[in-house]
């Protein structure tokens, strides 16, 4: 019983956040366009058609009533129909999620591993020339706008060197995807033995993954470095040195486990960013994920689509932070108490 209560409080708090997010989106949506009827009909349509559509959309009711209807639909999992695609938002989102997940998974794994390696190396060799070079790269990664990195990578590797394919999405134009098993194109190609296809897909992934990976790598490397430096300076590390514990054990066990705590928080934020569809990265590489869907939706004032995406992002955020809390208590005994 004792353990259940805080979890219940957490879940209630999370639901409150999600409710707040969708409410804020609803309000913003109504400010942007109090009457989205124009998005459905041609400007020449007569008043009767307009009134019919308005009634159909529930726009003839008062704003509070519309809000109530909106929440009721939401609870039933009905996110409405996208103005621009004409499809239910739910199916639009689910059909685009695999692309985002595939891109984000590789970028997060690669960026995190590299970030840890660089951060630890930098901390252990603090003040050395290598440390300075690595820090310089990290600051560059943090200060470079994603969309610009993407464009420059395209110019270097696609236009100048011809090493990477152009920005046309998950597969070259005219190439059919493998049968769906995991929805990860590379994995599915390999599972069905189509190695040529897998190579194509991997080549398409390379630049977007690197672009997004930089956004994962840089903050992780920075956090790992400073947390590691702080941990190495702690009294308990001095004790370990005094007790003749081998250097490697000190770095990779004694200090590392203490480093994980601050880094996990950063990692949660970065994962949330990557999996909610890095909007601009997907845009530049014509990646058919949820980020690009959201970008299109905003540019076309497609509210049901925006709502759906925002809801997805909020749930993602809440779930990631719930997992973070659990991870925290499994690493830090002080939180458990």
């Amino acid at each position: 019983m004792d353990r259940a209560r805080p979890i219940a409080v957490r879940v209630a708090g999370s639901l409150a956040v999600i409710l707040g997010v969708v409410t804020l989106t609803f309000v913003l949506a109504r400010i942007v366009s109090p009457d989205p009827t124009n998005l459905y009909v041609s400007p020449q349509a007569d008043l009767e058609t307009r009134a019919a559509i308005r009634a159909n959309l529930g726009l003839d009711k008062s704003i509070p009533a519309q809000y109530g209807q909106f929440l009721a639909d939401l609870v039933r999992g009905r996110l409405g129909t996208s103005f621009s695609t004409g499809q239910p938002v739910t199916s639009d989102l689910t059909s685009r999620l695999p692309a985002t997940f595939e891109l984000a998974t590789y970028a997060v794994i690669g960026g995190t591993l590299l970030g840890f390696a660089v951060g630890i190396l930098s901390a252990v060799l603090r003040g050395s020339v290598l440390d300075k070079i690595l820090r310089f790269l990290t600051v560059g990664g943090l200060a470079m706008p994603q969309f610009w990195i993407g464009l420059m990578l395209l110019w270097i590797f696609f236009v100048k060197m011809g090493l990477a394919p152009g920005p046309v999405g998950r597969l070259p134009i005219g190439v059919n995807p493998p049968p769906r098993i995991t929805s990860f194109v590379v994995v599915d190609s390999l599972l069905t033995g189509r190695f040529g296809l897998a190579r194509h897909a991997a080549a398409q992934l390379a630049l977007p993954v690197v672009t997004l990976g930089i956004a994962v790598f840089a903050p992780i490397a920075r956090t790992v470095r400073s947390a590691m430096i702080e941990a190495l300076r702690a009294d308990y590390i001095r004790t370990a040195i005094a007790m003749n514990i081998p250097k490697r054990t000190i770095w990779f066990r004694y200090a590392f486990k203490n480093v994980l705590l601050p880094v996990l928080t950063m990692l949660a934020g970065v994962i949330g960013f990557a999996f909610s569809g890095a909007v601009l990265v997907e845009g530049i590489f014509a990646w058919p994920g949820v980020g690009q869907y959201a970008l299109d939706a905003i540019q076309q004032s497609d509210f049901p689509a925006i709502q759906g995406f925002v809801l997805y992002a909020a749930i993602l955020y809440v779930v990631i932070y719930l997992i973070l809390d659990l991870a925290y208590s499994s690493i830090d005994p002080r939180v458990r108490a």
Partner: protein
Amino acid sequence: MSTLQPARRRRRSTPLSVWLGAGIVAVMAVVSATTRLWAPYDPDTAGVGPPYAAPSRDYLFGTDRVGSDVFSRTLSAATTDFGITLSAVVIAFVIGTALGALAGFYGGILDTILMRLMEIVQAFPALLLAMLMVAAVGSGIVNVIVVVSILGIPNYVRLVRAEILSKKNWQFAEAAKVIGNRPSRVLFRHLLPNSMRPLIAFSSINASWVAIIVASLGFIGLGIEPGSAEWGSMISRGQDSILSGEWWISGFPGIALLLLSASFYLIGDGLSEDSPGSSVLSARLLRRARRGAATAMATAAAARPESTPAPDRILEVIGFSGGFAGPEGVRPVLHDVSFGLRRGVMTAIVGETGSGKTLSALSIVGLAPEGFIRTGGQLVFDGVDLLADEPASYGRVRGTRISLVFQDARGSLNPVFTVGNQLIDACRANRKVSRNEARAIAIAMLERVQIPEPERRMRQYPHEFSGGMAQRVMLALALISEPELLVLDEPTTGLDVTIQADVMKLIVDLVRTEGLTACLITHDLGVVAETCQDVVVMRDGRVRETGSCQQIFTNPQDPYTAALLAASRLVEAA
């Protein structure tokens, strides 16, 4: 502890990177204020040159699709991007700090509501929320500033709230309240100014991020009026040309943005890094000081006659000197410290705070704090000079033959590993035993230091131990490697008086039954009189007097020793 303070008090040097960043930002500020002086062409006029001209002497950064000069436009855009970034950061800083201070200081329902609101804002992907809000309120410079500052506010609220919460109960705040200051005055005059450094560091990092968000909005066409010069929209304009090879249209505005963002970042990163010795400047100082010390020592070593250590002494400290690196070389703190530790005897090093006793003891095992530089002397342990081939020599004796017991036991144990794990690791690092054997030894060790239920305690974490129990664990940790010499650095400071006596008695018993040599660092002469045979008196980094306990207590030769004794008798009498 005492001797560590000079290290912490060392001058906080501003890292080079901060100056570099500030320099670039300053240049950018000047340029963006005086764009018209520098721009060779009108930035907003098309056709000042041929379309898609590559960078040349006439068009430094080339021209774009409509033949505008990219160099002039990049300069002109600096005004927009720099201006928006700066305004948004200032607004977010002021509002966020005020809200955070109120929430942290007054707490209650205001705090709860505010924090929930902030959480909602932060649950949005930042760029998406910015896009939505700009779409809602319309584009334009003012709207972009407002939207971007709203996005920044939650960070300031959280940061300031945490700062205020951590300092609210500090003594100076309490004191300010006690002498009758109004709460608001305590908040604005006493608490906030003390939180400024992290705040300014954060603002700078925030500015780096804001510059990118502003450009991102411009990139997707949601920023300021389309067509006007802004880095993000310039990059967007060149997007299609990239694929046909005209990289400069997007390339140069991006480099400008990168420069601005990175400069802000360098300032913030440098300011938030508080560690001495980590900055470029002090790393250089350290190296220079070390070099100077090395040459001095080589000369001194050549001049010194060969000393023959007395065989009954396990450790001989001979002429040990050193200090901390400062701008003018090494500032000495230990002067020609010499003493010996007799085998099987408990020797006390006594002295007041700042006398160099802890520093001397830590130096025996090469654990002096970072920044300490040895300028001379020998440490002869069992006939071998430890300093001759450090750090390898320490590896052979540290832990295995010399063990340390630190002052703050709970801080000296790793918080995320069980006590049992740490004991087993320490045992296996120094003795050739299997994990199971090490486990048995660890349990036996806990029993020896009189910890009840040792098997259950093995599975517990340091925070589950009281101060006295933690110090017993520390003792078990030090003894598990079966050392010959045990150095105890104020082992009972910070414990309750009754527990102090228990722990001290345990230490004396263990030392006696094991036949250990012990070195006790303390300022408690009462303890010394009861437990030690030899005494070393230190003051201001110098050894004032050494001798047997009886001689020191009955017939002190040094006036300082006499004064120390008189003072402690006064305390006892009272």
